[in-house]
């Protein structure tokens, strides 16, 4: 009986997602249309990609508050490359590499300065945003080849291209987390850093790697965002870090580290995406949406805590 209750609670995020889906289908006739669902997929792609990166960082016991700024900076640099005439693939790669470098620097600062990641990334949040504004003089990049919109708006085999991208990224991150030493070490470091050091794990290297991977995924998200807006906005991504963290946490990730999963994060991200889409469809004001999403975060984490307290 006890085990059953535990299972039920473990599945709760997934069940909530399904209930939300069904409820919205009933509440709004427009919800279950192909048009709306593809638009949800597109809207959530940016947050979901970021949240995947945040998942690894949080599992390793870290946090990255600078992802919103990384998103802005990498989207800007990527579109500047396009503006300069480089091929689209090069521009996208540039965005990803910039994101990775930003993450790498975060990791370096966290491991070398021995300052809590919360503080380090609070600082780089400002630095990366400032750099984006300096590089662009505060002006958005507009001269972008039309073909670039394919990344965020195009379809492949009738399904949004970003959905394919998300699936590929999710599978990759899942494999890294569950089937490679890097992922194993992320869990170990997040669960007990001292024990990991004493087991001979190169802890600093792996923490840095984790932030770099998170940064690369954020860089990709930055390019998706730029493609959807068809502009390189130096101010893009403000406040996105909270969305990414919320998705991880709703999906069962623990800010104490050592816990989290790709599936959980995606469920968390989609719950937030559907809430926001549903609120739009049902004409609930943007102001109330924030209240609702905030309440869901607290509710989800409370339920998860209750489950864990019972389990141990």
């Amino acid at each position, binding site marked *: 009986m006890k085990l059953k209750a535990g299972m039920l609670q473990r599945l709760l995020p997934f069940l909530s997602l399904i209930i939300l889906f069904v409820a919205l289908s009933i509440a709004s006739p427009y919800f279950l249309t192909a048009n709306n669902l593809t638009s949800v997929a597109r809207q959530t792609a940016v947050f979901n990609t970021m949240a995947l990166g945040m998942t690894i960082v949080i599992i390793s016991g870290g946090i990255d508050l600078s992802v919103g700024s990384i998103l802005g900076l990498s989207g800007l640099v990527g579109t500047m490359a396009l503006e300069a005439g480089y091929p689209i693939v090069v521009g996208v790669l540039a965005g990803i590499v910039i994101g990775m470098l930003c993450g790498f620097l975060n990791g370096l600062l966290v491991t070398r300065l021995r300052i809590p990641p919360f503080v380090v990334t609070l600082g780089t949040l400002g630095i990366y945003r400032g750099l984006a504004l300096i590089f662009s003089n505060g002006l958005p990049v507009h001269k972008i080849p039309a073909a670039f919109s394919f990344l965020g708006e195009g379809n492949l085999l009738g399904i949004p291209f970003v959905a394919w991208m998300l699936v590929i990224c999710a599978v990759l991150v899942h*494999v890294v987390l*569950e*089937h*490679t*030493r890097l992922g*194993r*070490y992320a*869990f*170990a470091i997040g*669960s*007990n850093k*001292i*024990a*990991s*050091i*004493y*087991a*001979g*794990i*190169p802890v600093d290297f792996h923490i840095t790697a984790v932030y770099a991977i998170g940064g690369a995924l954020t860089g990709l998200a930055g390019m998706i965002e730029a493609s959807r807006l068809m502009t390189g906005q130096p101010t893009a991504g403000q406040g996105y870090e909270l969305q990414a963290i919320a998705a991880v946490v709703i999906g069962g990730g*623990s800010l104490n580290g*050592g*816990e989290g999963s790709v599936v959980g994060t995606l469920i968390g991200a989609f719950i937030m995406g559907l809430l926001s889409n549903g609120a739009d469809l049902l004409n609930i004001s943007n102001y109330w949406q924030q209240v609702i999403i905030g309440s869901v975060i607290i509710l989800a984490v409370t339920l998860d805590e209750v489950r864990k307290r019972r*389990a*141990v």
Partner: protein
Amino acid sequence: MVLLELRNIEKHFGGVTALRSGNLAVAAGEVHLLLGENGAGKSTLMKIVAGIVQRDGGQMLWNGQEVFLRTPAEAAAIGIAMVNQESLLAPHMTVAENIFLGREERSPLGWVNRRAITEKARRLIEQYQFPLDAEWRVDKLSPAGRQMVEICRAIQHGSSLLIFDEPTSSLSDTETQQVFRIVRDLKARQMGIIYITHRMDELRAIGDRVTVLRDGGTVHTGNLADIPTDQLIRHMVGREVAQIYEREHLQPGAAALEVRGVSVVKSKLKDISLTLRKGEITGMAGLIGAGRTELCRAIFGIDRIDAGEVLVHGEAMKIRTPRDAVKAGIALVTEDRQISGLALRLPIGANVTMANTERISRFGFLDLAAQNRLSAELGQKMRLKAASPAQLAGTLSGGNQQKVVIAKWLFREAGIFLFDEPTRGIDIGAKAEVFELMSELARAGAAILMVSSELPELMHVADRILVMRQGRISGELARGCTQEQIMKLAVMEAAA
């Protein structure tokens, strides 16, 4: 006049009995020493007196009236205060503010009158001649200074019984003398004092009466002048040891780990030399704070060695990090497995393979099937009581958690093992199994250092025993030595 009387106090934590019959009587104007080995129940008994934990049975009389204290505040209200090993002061506030913390005098408007409390604190400090200033910040004080602030606080709050829990364990000689002077002063003012200590050399400088606890019960109480130190030690350690600890003793092989003249400034280790041989279990005794854990940390690359060298299999090794140590085949089983040994929220399988993921990696990917198969095999061999390798390490009992920690190093195929208090917090059955594992390791050619505060265990398991005292190795004893010999090396100045 008897101030405090404890009669047959009992306390259980889960299934573990911490106290079965704690008896103690303290009069006003006396310094009452409370002695006993680690785990004898001294701290628990004092926590009951101070209202930090509640007794399960027995009586506590305060000035002849039975009392039951639920919180430290209730204890403070009737006049009982405890000076803690770890200071419980607010570090960013001044001495005066700490003395009056929670009892600030307020002006009619509710402001805290800082000048008034500083003045009052100053008068108190003068009266007792504490080496303090009312306006110093507490985080700038030495451990001795902080203790004195706690003492001031107790006096200010009108305490009539003061409990000292190993007050001098982290103090220098001068500071110790200061504490002694203050204790004598308090005694002269008719305060009752309970004084816990491990340092046999300071007993007679301070104590009037003495009570010895062993295995949760009072085994001796009387005037200090009436009993020689040897006999006190016998009371502390005298217990029968079950035969399960017996093991065969092998001829040791080649030297696996040599420590030569190692000093660590930070942890006060001075000129330590020792050799661990293959097939031998070297015991290490000493009081808490003697530097045994610190030595393990230094060998394992956690703390930097300032002088001296470490040789592994005859070769000088630069071990700067735990990673270097692990690569050199050294394993550290720490004294606190929950903090530094296990990833509690991860499965057993992940913990077992943590120090050697190379062994389960195929083409850069983890072979999870191999991980679970190998951990299950190892678990079976070690009689690990777990449902499967997927069970979370945090859900295991203490003994089984310890087995997982040891399994991690077996999986790594380490050859040199540093066991720091390997039986802490595990039950008697699991202890025997841990010793059996250690014996098997020795048979298979491992070199083992076993740090333990449990003398009977050391005496039965170790092939020889090194004793540490205040950062140095104070002596070596062969198998068959007595507990009295060990205690003497652990507590007394070396004979001139």
